[in-house]
């Protein structure tokens, strides 16, 4: 993004402790209103939800905490296909985002030259058209008998995807492929931007050095560029995977009842069926599953200073 006002170049700030200010209470006073907001409307609700998930009762007679943990078991045994599907769809979308987003981020960082700002604008600007409108546009793009489906059919791609169970017959809409396509599209910018940030930080002299040492472009990429872009890869995959797992908009607009994800179940339990304990249990399981997966992933990728 272009910054309108650029501050004058500054000398590097001295290392060490920030300057001492008057008043020991100033930081707490600055923090208080915002943190209170987060505690009351973010942390407290999670506790309320935990308590709701072990309640029994009905809407008419009211709910009571009965430590009824069986709700968790019932929810898991009934909706495990939706959980598995959510993780599979989100993981496929994340991998696709990485494969598609990397060249674009690379292009902006190293090859765009004077077009860099324009391409950057074109990556960010679609955000301003409501994502629901853009997701609905995919209904037109993937329409039955439309040009995209026609081309895929002519190339016999649909035969392969149908064999794999990604599509059904000669249609793409209302199949897993359409949902994954929508998820990939919706979260692609969240992959491109962190990738670009970490690629841009790479000193171009490292590329020259690799070149001087007779490394082929592919070797340079494998041994220099990609390892140095790992922080971007990690934060990009997290920013794509987490929201994609909980998403229910793509599965609802582009999918069918066979592509329902756990988000769809939580949404309908909460807003249509009004079975609050089951809904709360499902949402709690989703949260726990994501926290565990993310912790393991961050451990494994060895970059714990993401925040």
């Amino acid at each position, binding site marked *: *993004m*272009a*910054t*309108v006002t*650029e501050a004058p170049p*500054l000398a590097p700030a*001295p290392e060490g402790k*920030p*300057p001492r*200010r008057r008043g020991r209470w*100033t*930081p707490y006073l*600055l*923090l208080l*209103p*915002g*943190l209170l*907001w*987060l505690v009351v*409307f*973010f942390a*407290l*609700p*999670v506790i*309320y*939800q935990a308590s*709701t998930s072990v309640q029994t009762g009905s809407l008419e007679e009211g709910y009571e905490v009965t430590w009824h943990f069986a709700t968790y078991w019932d929810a898991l045994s009934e909706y495990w296909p939706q959980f598995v599907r959510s993780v599979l769809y989100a993981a496929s979308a994340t991998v696709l985002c990485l494969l*598609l987003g990397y*060249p674009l981020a*690379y*292009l902006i960082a190293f*090859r765009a030259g004077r077009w860099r700002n324009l*391409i950057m604008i*074109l990556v*960010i*600007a679609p*955000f*301003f*058209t*409501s994502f*629901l409108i*853009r*997701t*609905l*546009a995919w*209904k*037109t793009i993937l*329409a039955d008998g439309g040009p995209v489906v026609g081309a895929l059919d002519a190339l016999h791609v649909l035969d392969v995807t149908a064999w794999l169970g990604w599509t059904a017959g000669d249609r793409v809409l209302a199949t897993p492929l359409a949902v994954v396509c929508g998820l990939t*599209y919706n979260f*692609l910018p969240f992959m491109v931007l962190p990738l670009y940030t970490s690629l841009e930080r790479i000193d171009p002299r490292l590329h020259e050095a690799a070149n001087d040492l007779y490394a082929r472009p592919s070797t340079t990429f494998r041994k220099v560029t990609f390892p140095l872009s790992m922080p971007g890869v990690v934060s990009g995959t997290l920013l794509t995977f987490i*929201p994609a*797992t*909980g*998403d229910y908009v793509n599965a609802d607009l582009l999918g069918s009842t066979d592509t329902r994800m756990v*988000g769809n179940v939580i*949404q309908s339990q*909460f807003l249509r069926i009004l079975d609050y304990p089951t809904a709360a249990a499902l*949402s709690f399981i*989703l*949260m726990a599953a994501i926290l565990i997966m993310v912790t393991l992933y961050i451990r494994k990728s060895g970059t714990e200073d993401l925040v």
Partner: protein
Amino acid sequence: MAFVNWLKRHLVVIAGLLTLGYLLLPNVVVTVFSFNNPKGRFNYEWQEFSTEAWRDPCGVSGLCGSLTLSLQIALWAMLGATLLGTMIAFALVRYRFRARSAVNSLIFLPMAMPEVVMAASLLTLFLNMGAQLGFWTILIAHIMFCLSFVVVAVKARVMSMDPRLEQAAQDLYAGPFQTFVRVTLPIAAPGIAAGALLAFALSFDDFIITNFNAGSTVTFPMFVWGSAQRGTPVQINVIGTAMFVIAVLLVLVSMAVGRRRNRQKA
């Protein structure tokens, strides 16, 4: 062979541009279909060219009301989140205090949690409190999830700021208030502006959290959602196209102004 070599050399550029095309394709479709004259309730198939929807964007009942409501909520959410978030960012960068890491994780968690979980848990809180769902519950929720993004944006800017500039101001007998208004705030301004813009865009476009906590109140994304089930008026594509065009124009103008200012300085 020459072609293969050319392809090899420009592989990254071609792949990158194809991805860019994938990102922009829906916007092209939205623009084209804003000039459609659909026969049925849904605007998914091309029928014939018409500028009718552009001449009367508010012609569908409820659409412009929901748009106004979304703009209002986004504006208040932006103000609230920017104020609270900037204060937190300054406290985190400028002061050493106990529980800093606990505060940091409380800020990080809302960004690392799927929206549907936050939406559902907030709804259980509101239901337990017996709160009336509507404008205020939406605003509370939006300030909550925008807050962390503002903190991150402002923190990045304040962190790269030289604290000696403020010391210099104090050496020149500026009071704490004067130092803050004349030195600190102008330098932090781009970060605060970026955070505010992000909060506005996030709030304006949010569907999942609003869907849970809006009751019967209809924001613009909820209007679009409802129309996806009942029938999509062409006017939705008109609003979508207009938003895209306005965003691109604003960025281009701000870039031009920035370039001119830089040239005047030089």
